[in-house]
C-alpha cells in the first residue's frame, strides 16, 4: 500500500499558467502535482523512459479499474499492459481520462472559429514532446488531473467546474522510469480552469522503499 511518508524532496518547480513541463521520474519516485491556486486542470502524458512507444493507455487503465474516473489507488496502465505508476495520494478526488486535451482544432469545432488561435494543450504537448524526439503521433488520450467530467448513464458528458481547492494535490508514484509530460491547461472556454488558468507546482520525492 502507498506509504504515507512523503519522502524527501529532490525537485520542485512552479509551472506558470498555460505552460508545459516534462521530466524523467525514476522508478520509486513520487511526483506531487499541486493545484496552487485551485480550479486548474492539469493534462498529463506518460511514457516509459526506456521505450517511448510504451505509453499511458486511458482505455487499458479504465478497463482494469472497471470505472470511468481516476482516484486514490488507481494503477496507470501502459499500452503494453504494464503498471506504469499508481495514484498514491489524492486530496481532490476528481480526475478524468476520457476527455482528452484541448487543441486549436477541437476548440474551433466546439466553441467556434474565433477560438482557433487560443493557446491549447496539444500545442504544449507537441512542443514539449519535440524536446524528446516525439511528435503528434505520440499524443494519445491523456490524464486530466483535477478535472471533473461526469459521464451519465445516458452517455451525457460534460466538463464541469474545476473541483480543486488551492493546495489540493495528487501523488503519482512511478513503477518504472517514466517520461512525465504536463500541459498546464490554457483552456478558457470551459469551466475546467474557472475560465482563468493559474500556476501549478510539481515536486518530486524519493519515496521510502515499500
Amino acid at each position, binding site marked *: 500500500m502507498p506509504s504515507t511518508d512523503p519522502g524527501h524532496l529532490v525537485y520542485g518547480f512552479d509551472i506558470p499558467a498555460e505552460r508545459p513541463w516534462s521530466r524523467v521520474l525514476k522508478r520509486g519516485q513520487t511526483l506531487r502535482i499541486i493545484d496552487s491556486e485551485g480550479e486548474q486542470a492539469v493534462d498529463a502524458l506518460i511514457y516509459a523512459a526506456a521505450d517511448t512507444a510504451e505509453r499511458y493507455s486511458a482505455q487499458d487503465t479504465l478497463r482494469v479499474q*472497471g470505472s470511468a474516473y481516476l482516484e486514490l489507488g488507481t494503477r496507470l496502465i501502459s499500452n503494453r499492459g504494464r503498471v506504469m505508476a499508481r495514484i498514491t495520494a489524492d486530496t481532490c478526488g476528481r480526475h478524468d481520462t476520457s*476527455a482528452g486535451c484541448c*487543441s*486549436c482544432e477541437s476548440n474551433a*469545432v466546439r466553441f467556434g472559429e474565433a477560438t482557433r488561435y487560443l493557446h491549447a494543450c496539444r500545442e504544449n504537448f507537441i512542443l514539449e514532446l519535440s524536446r524528446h524526439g516525439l511528435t503528434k503521433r505520440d499524443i494519445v488520450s491523456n490524464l486530466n488531473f483535477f478535472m471533473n467530467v461526469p459521464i451519465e448513464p445516458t452517455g451525457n458528458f460534460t466538463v464541469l467546474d474545476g473541483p480543486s481547492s488551492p493546495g489540493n494535490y495528487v501523488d503519482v508514484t512511478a513503477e518504472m522510469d517514466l517520461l512525465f509530460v504536463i500541459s498546464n491547461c490554457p483552456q478558457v472556454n470551459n469551466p475546467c480552469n474557472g475560465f*482563468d488558468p493559474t500556476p501549478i507546482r510539481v515536486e518530486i520525492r524519493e519515496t521510502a522503499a515499500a
Partner: protein
Amino acid sequence: MSAASKAERAAANRRRYEELRAAGQELKQLPAPTALDGAPIAADAVVQTEQVPPGWHTTVRLSRGEALRIIDDHGRSSVSLLAWRSEDPTERINCADTVKVQWSAALSKGRMILSDMGRVLLAVIEDTSGAHDLLVGGSTADSTLSAYGEVTRNTQANFISAAAKIGLGLRDIPPCVTFFAPVTTDAAGRFVWHAARKHAGDFVDLRAEMNLIVAVSNCAHPLDPARPAATAPITLIRHRLPPPAVDDVCRTASEEAVRAYAFTDQLFA
C-alpha cells in the same frame, strides 16, 4: 488584463459554455435507430464483401463518400475499429474528441467520429444498435489472460499487426471505438454491460468523410460476460453511396457537426 475585464470575459465564456451544452445535449435532432431490416444495399452499390472470423482482423481502404457496413450477424460479436487518413496517417481517430465535442459518450445514428484535427473521419449514417463503446477499448493479452486463463487472439495484438502491414507501429495506435459493445457508466462511474442491447443482425453504416485506412478487429469486448463463447464471424460490406443531401442528418445534427464538416470539406475544396 484588469480584474474587472477578466471577470467579464469569464462570465461571457461561462454563458457561452452553458448555451453550447444546452444545445449539445438536447439531442432532439438525432434520428431513431435503423430497423434491423432497414436500409438495404443495392447489389450494384457493393464494392467488396468480407467475412472476418472470430479473433481476426482486416484492413479496408475507403474513399471519401463510400461506406462500410459492419454486421454483427449472430449478435455475439463486438467490433473494434481504428481509422487513419490515407494521405497523412498522423491524422487518425480521436475517441476523446469524438465524445467531448458531441457532449456524449453514446455513439448512435446521426453522430460523427472525429479525427485529432477537428475533422470528421466517419459518419454513423445507419445504426440499429446505438450501443457502442468509446471509453473502455478492445481486448488485450492481459484482458484475455485474466478472463480465460490464457492469452488468446485479441484486439491489441490485431491492431499492432494491422498497423504494421500498412507501415505503422505502436505509436500510431490510439484508443479505439468498439461497435456492438453496450457499455454505460452507472452513477458511481462503474462500467455496466447491457447484454439485452445486442441483437443478431445488428449493423452500422459508416460513411467515410475523407480517404481512410480502417482496421477492424473481431474480438469479444473485454467487459462481455458471455466470453469466450461470444465468438462468431462478422460481415463487412464496402459500398458506394449517393452524395449526401444538403440536409444530411450527420452534417446538420449540431453546430459542432456543421463546423467539423466545414473544416473537413476544406480538405477537398
